[in-house]
């Protein structure tokens, strides 16, 4: 910022020896302005990734200690109940979050695409959860799902005294509560992308299908869905990525509990690094998290590249 503010003076190169210095100073500033942000950004991505990966192969405990121990941290981390529960939960949470968010997002997009009145207001309502933090979402849903004071209590007060909705305190069901809160937060995002896709569908194609006597469901399946197919993959990947990196939501909603029943990979990393002060194992858990992300992102990257090449050719 300071660099940019001094520019007009540096730009006015005068003649004589002073001007040469001024120009050199200007060139140095230009180099700095080009390279400082890029070096900081690219540098931290490369160096930090290599650094944490390296730490994961060392005996680091409370402080980084660069004695090489091979795969020992990986072996011991993957053997903990903590880790195994986290990855089982990730599968449940990931599948639930992705499928339900996409289904609800698609439903909302299709409904909003029916030329409804008040579309802007409705869109604003479905999207507002994206503007609040996962901490707020988690806190509020922990109230709603609280059996003593939330939905269960309200329904019981209405007269259904046998009504039970206490997933939040059941260790085998609490992870579904995290899914509910996550879907509430993310459905608007899926809706926005799907709606943009639906609006880009060729209207003439739809008209032609209507003239051929195709019903609305058939038009959606045969004309609209194929056009917005790439958006499905994008939404799928983004949601899966957010499931893998999800941290705040669980911390605010269940704190990983009851017990460790809603543990997720991010909580395992945090637990090893900052609660048990085992940096080596924490790093191994972080690298394993990165690898699970790579499994998702690399095929997606290849797919995007393939799509672009296909578009370029046609």
């Amino acid at each position: 910022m300071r660099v940019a503010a001094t520019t007009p003076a540096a730009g006015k190169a005068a003649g004589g020896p002073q001007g040469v210095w001024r120009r050199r100073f200007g060139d140095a500033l230009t180099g700095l302005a080009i390279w400082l942000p890029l070096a900081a950004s690219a540098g931290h991505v490369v160096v930090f990734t290599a650094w944490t990966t390296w730490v994961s192969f060392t005996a680091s405990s409370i402080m980084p200690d660069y004695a090489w121990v091979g795969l020992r941290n990986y072996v011991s981390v993957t053997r903990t109940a903590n880790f195994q529960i986290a990855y089982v939960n990730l599968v449940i949470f990931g599948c639930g979050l992705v499928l339900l968010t996409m289904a609800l997002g698609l439903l909302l997009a299709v409904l909003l695409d029916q030329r409804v009145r008040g579309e802007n207001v409705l869109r604003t309502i479905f999207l507002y959860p994206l503007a609040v933090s996962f901490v707020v979402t988690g806190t509020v849903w922990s109230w709603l799902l609280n059996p003593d004071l939330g939905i269960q209590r309200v329904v019981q007060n209405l007269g259904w005294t046998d009504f039970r909705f206490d997933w939040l305190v059941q260790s085998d069901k609490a992870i579904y509560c995290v899914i509910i809160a996550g879907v509430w937060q993310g459905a608007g995002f899926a809706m926005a992308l799907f709606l943009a896709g639906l609006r880009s569908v060729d209207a003439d194609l739809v008209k032609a299908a209507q003239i051929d006597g195709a019903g609305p469901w058939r038009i959606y399946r045969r004309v609209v869905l194929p056009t917005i197919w790439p958006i499905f993959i994008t939404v799928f990947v983004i949601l899966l990525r957010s499931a893998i990196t999800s941290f705040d939501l669980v911390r605010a909603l269940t704190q990983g509990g009851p017990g460790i029943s809603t543990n997720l990979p991010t909580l395992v990393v945090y637990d090893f690094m900052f609660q048990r002060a085992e940096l080596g194992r924490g790093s191994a858990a972080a690298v394993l998290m990165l690898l699970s992300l790579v499994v998702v992102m690399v095929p997606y990257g290849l797919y995007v590249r393939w799509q672009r090449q296909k578009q370029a050719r046609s």
Partner: protein
Amino acid sequence: MKWTRIIVYALLIVLAILFLVPLGVVIANSLRSNQEIASSSLIAWPDHLTFANFGQAWNKFCMAEHCWGIQPYMVNSLTLTIPATILSTLLGALAGYSISLWRFRGDQFVFGIVTLGIFLPEQMKLIPWVVVLRDLSLMNTIAGLVLIHTVQGLSFTTLFCRNYYIGIPQDLLKAARIDGAGFFRIFWRIILPVSPPILIVCVIFQFTGIWNEFLFGVTFTSGEQQPVTAALIALSAAITSEPLYGDQSAAVLIAALPTLLVYLFGGRYFLRGLTAGAVK
């Protein structure tokens, strides 16, 4: 009206109400007394309106040995979010401009690595940041969080600005360079004047992202230095023994208000940032 239209509207209205329930619950509870909530439930209309919760939440209730409400944490979040947003946006504009228009050897490679930063999980950066912050004596300071969010945010702002500037014709720059304009003068006179739309996207994206961030805040700061997201979690933990849902609702509402306002007033740009960051 055909029956399909009725179903469409009925579904939309029911879903809209469901989406609004959590916000409604927070607003309603912020206006109810703690006793009233404890004696009925968290989901009810206020019997007696009270605004005392907001005063309590703002600067009175006690947590972590201090009785000053969430006010200091809101101040922390502001003093963290505003500089980090401005710095990451300006540096991102500069980086996007260098990559898209002031081409240099290896620019596409560097750009590829910068955008990889979008996908790199924060967990991979925690230990290096601990060491870097400690060496710079920035551990447990707002300045440390500003540094982290500026560097971290560059991945997004560079991507947004680069994709925007790539549409500016190269010939315009060539002409300016022939006239003797340098890197900064072109940036100042040609690039910045056409940038407001993308800068607004960057500012809104960064502001909401940094304001809502939790992991870095809770990892690198403690006690009085924490941003408001971390304070909300500490508050939940502090009052489990004696639930004060009225105060807590008011605190949640206050903490969520800045980003909700940004969303309401800049919705179009908010969405553009989200989809641009997503679709790439």
